[in-house]
């Protein structure tokens, strides 16, 4: 009873495996021998057999599966559903289930980032392939030529006949096999190949609507199980005792005071020390007691945050890693200029700083199977890292994912910090282990967003137009995916970032990633300079300050200096900084959103600094600033209006206005929420955030030593969506919005005070120094 049907697309093939007495489904499977689709939800715990992408059931419901996860931005529950429903020709509500992340129940792997940029292409193509296969099936069943059929609302109709998707698959066991490339557990996962026909954007009825995020209700009602809520039978609670410095080795582990903590136990694996107990509070207290009694070797090898910029400028050998040229470089920046602006710009280490510290559970069974319960942005790559650490087959490892505290890219290479420690402790103890890092562990032992500095010079011609732009961006790399527990235990990991790392994403080379937008500037020379992570090579345990991508990695570090420098160049030219941008961008989409920003923000067109700008005094002064960025096909412009008390050094952001043209807006409700929150997190970074560290390690250890924005400090935020659906591309949301505030606020600082702000955070001690410089 099996057979095949011509889908009309060379790349995909539909096979009929049989007819069923009841039910029926069409399941979209992978075109790879090693990854045969499992026959339905919950039917497989075999990690080598990820399940299907899309299943159409006889009751007209549809399941979609993705290896990507939700990090609070909702895209897999909103935009993904909308895009699949649109391509497939079914109602949004017909997609009743979204399975995500779990390595044994999702098909494609890869990292959760750029969801609307590239990643949704997998499911979008699968949906398009499936719609074509549905049309073939319907043509057969209805005996109507395919070109007379059309699809809408889950119904195929034509020639006076119609049939629902459910009726088409009822009683059958259908498999649509589609072509893929890549490796499931590789960093970028699998990519669906071929070019199935996409629905034209002009015909969209679902994309563009403000659908609600289906995970919000279960989260808010308390029904959703978060990773920290998972309880495994017979599990113990663990607290790690991390080394005294970022380069310390264990001398002697402390002993548990059994009289005080009878149920607690110390576990030592190399330099990995932990205390476990069936009682969580006992584990917490016993860990503190044992930590006070544990001896580590001393180590000093970091420059300290106070000397960080000097260290980067004077001590780092920038010729160890090849430099890279910007793709927009042209002309000769040595061209003669009437006036020159030059400056050095600096961005410190920043923390992802999730509200909940990383927590994971692991169950390593005597049969060799390993199950990890966590909140990861790249579970298949985590599976690879865990297998590598244990020298096991990847088939033995399953990663299950749950909602967790947003950590903004920290785990897009698999681990957020606690996963591998849970695995090693469970293997040692032979029972499930839950590792909950405490606040200080999460601040001091997680990765951070790396620092950078830039030397920029801008030449103006006699008429005040930019004739040349030169920028040298320098900083450590941004993607250390080595699990910390594996490092401490001395077990195998992938390599740290270096110029020779075979994985491109894990290279120490710094590219110019902030897309150049000032096309009217005739001479441009941008260069990226990379180096090794600070202290990593010097640390006897290979740790040092480990870095990891955060929201708009590298682009934030390059866009901040560029946009602040452009504002300073406008000041030198005697121009209005918003009009100065309009005069130098070449893309009409930027001109449009900048003009819109001028209206929406109440921008006053005039020279900068403002008349009456002051760098001293008790009275509050005000300023306006602007920034722009092109990221993932999204055009962004931001205006900040701020108030400063020079005597106190206090900066208050009063209003933030954002205009975004992302091409097609998939979901205006969710995009607005993402942009509001993302931009406010940017205000937090601008006003407060800098990782403090001394020669030994990180000294920011809680919310008082790493403060973030509070509600009382929030400005009014206005987000204006200015879509351009005709361009046919989906832009991105919150991560782009995150980078906008800092350069706009720094521009407003110059406007208000007449003094440049070439670094963040703009907290009182730095502000006072800037004002007296």
């Amino acid at each position: 009873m099996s057979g095949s049907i011509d889908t009309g697309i060379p790349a995909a093939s539909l096979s009929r495996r049989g007819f069923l007495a009841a039910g029926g489904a069409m399941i979209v499977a992978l075109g790879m021998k090693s990854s045969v689709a499992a026959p339905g939800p919950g039917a497989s715990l075999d990690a080598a057999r990820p399940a299907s992408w899309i299943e159409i059931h006889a009751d007209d419901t549809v399941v979609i599966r993705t290896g990507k996860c939700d990090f609070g931005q909702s895209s897999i529950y909103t935009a993904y559903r909308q895009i699949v429903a649109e391509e497939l020709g079914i109602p949004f509500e017909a997609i009743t289930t979204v399975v995500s992340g779990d390595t044994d129940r999702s098909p494609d792997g890869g990292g959760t980032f750029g969801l609307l940029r590239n990643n949704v292409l997998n499911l979008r193509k699968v949906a398009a392939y499936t719609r074509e296969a549905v049309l073939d099936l319907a043509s057969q069943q209805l005996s109507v030529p395919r070109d007379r059929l059309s699809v809408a609302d889950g119904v195929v109709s034509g020639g006076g006949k119609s049939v629902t998707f459910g009726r088409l698959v009822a009683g059958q066991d259908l498999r649509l096999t589609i072509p893929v490339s890549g490796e499931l557990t590789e960093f970028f996962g699998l990519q669906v190949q071929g070019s199935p026909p996409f629905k034209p954007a002009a015909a969209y009825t679902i994309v563009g609507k403000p659908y609600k995020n289906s995970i919000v209700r279960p989260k808010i009602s308390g029904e959703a199980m978060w990773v920290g809520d998972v309880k495994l039978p017979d599990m113990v609670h663990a607290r790690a005792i991390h080394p005294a410095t970022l380069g310390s080795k264990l001398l002697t582990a402390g002993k548990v005071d059994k009289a005080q903590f009878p149920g607690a136990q110390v576990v030592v694996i190399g330099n990995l020390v932990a205390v476990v107990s069936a009682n969580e509070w006992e584990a917490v207290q016993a860990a503190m007691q044992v930590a006070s009694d544990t001896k580590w070797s001393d180590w000093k090898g970091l420059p300290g945050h106070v000397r960080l910029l000097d260290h980067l400028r004077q001590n780092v050998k920038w010729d160890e890693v090849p430099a890279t040229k910007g793709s927009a470089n042209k002309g000769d920046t040595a061209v003669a200029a009437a006036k020159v602006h030059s400056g050095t710009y600096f961005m410190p280490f920043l923390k992802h700083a999730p509200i909940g510290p990383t927590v994971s559970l692991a169950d390593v069974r005597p049969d060799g199977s390993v199950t990890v319960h966590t909140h990861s942005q790249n579970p298949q790559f985590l599976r690879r890292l865990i297998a590598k650490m244990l020298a096991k087959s990847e088939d033995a490892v399953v990663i299950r994912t749950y909602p967790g505290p947003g950590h903004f890219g920290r785990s897009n290479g698999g681990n957020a910090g606690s996963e591998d420690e849970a695995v090693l402790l469970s293997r040692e103890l032979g029972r499930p282990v839950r590792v909950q890092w405490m606040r200080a562990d999460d601040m001091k032992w997680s990765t951070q967003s790396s620092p950078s500095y830039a030397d920029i010079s801008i030449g103006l011609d006699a008429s005040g137009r930019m004739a040349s732009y030169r920028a040298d961006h320098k900083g450590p790399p941004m993607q250390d995916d080595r699990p910390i527990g594996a490092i401490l235990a001395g077990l195998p990991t992938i390599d740290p970032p270096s110029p020779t790392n075979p994985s491109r994403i894990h290279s120490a080379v710094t590219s110019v990633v902030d897309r150049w937008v000032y096309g009217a500037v005739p001479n441009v020379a941008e260069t990226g300079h990379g180096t090794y992570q600070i202290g990593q090579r010097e640390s006897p345990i290979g740790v040092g300050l480990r870095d990891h991508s955060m929201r708009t990695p590298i682009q934030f570090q390059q866009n901040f200096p560029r946009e602040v420098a452009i504002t300073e160049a406008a000041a030198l030219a005697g121009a209005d900084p918003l009009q100065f941008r309009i005069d130098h961008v070449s893309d009409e989409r930027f001109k449009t959103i900048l003009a819109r920003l001028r209206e929406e923000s109440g921008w006053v067109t005039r020279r900068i600094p403002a008349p009456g700008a002051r760098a001293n005094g008790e009275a509050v002064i005000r300023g306006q600033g602007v920034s722009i960025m092109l990221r993932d096909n999204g055009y962004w412009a931001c205006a900040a209006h701020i108030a400063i008390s020079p005597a106190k050094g206090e900066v208050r952001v009063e209003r933030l206005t954002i205009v975004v043209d992302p091409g097609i807006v998939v979901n205006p409700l969710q995009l607005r929420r993402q942009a509001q929150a993302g931009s406010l997190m940017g205000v937090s970074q601008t006003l407060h955030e800098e990782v403090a560290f001394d020669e030994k390690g990180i000294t920011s250890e809680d919310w008082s030593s790493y403060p973030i924005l509070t509600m009382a400090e929030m400005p009014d935020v206005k987000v204006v969506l200015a879509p351009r659906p005709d361009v046919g591309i989906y832009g991105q949301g919150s991560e782009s919005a995150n980078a906008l505030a800092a350069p706009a606020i720094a521009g407003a600082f110059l406007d208000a005070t007449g003094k440049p702000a070439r670094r963040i955070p703009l907290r009182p001690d730095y502000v006072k120094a800037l004002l007296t410089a």
Partner: protein
Amino acid sequence: MITIVVNGEKRQVQSSPDTPLLYVLRNELNLMTPKFGCGLAQCGACSVLLDGEEIRSCITPVDSVTDKEVTTVDGLPARWAKQRSLSPEKAAKTLHPVQEAWIEEQVPQCGICQFGMMIKVTELLEHNPKPSDDDIKEALTTSGPSPHLCRCASYAAILEGVHRAASIMAEGDLG
């Protein structure tokens, strides 16, 4: 053995008297909406109501709450139903207006902080049914042991959520 009253029920507790209420709620009573954030009363993720006033359960020993009533987000629907004398059928289908507002306004990004936010906002609205923006910011920033922190910075959505909740509660009064 300690007895505490949580979400309207008397519960026997085995944990030692110094155990922070947060661990008792989560590990012993299986009430998972208060979240572990800092363990230092610096963020508000673990907030619960104690006789209607917000406290931080991560630093509150369980034996200090024996003669008072603890309410977690899990217990907010029943609290609302009791306050408004809703019929059992209606009560079974009703979330607290703050929860409904949070869903209507799509307040959360990741959502981990929102349990503490909703507890604090419930406390606020029970005292002040029509708060101004400044009242809301004050409640969520300076009124307690620390500001209620949201790393996703969903503060604009929270502000809209509180006003929506106030309006749902006022409608309830009319209806």
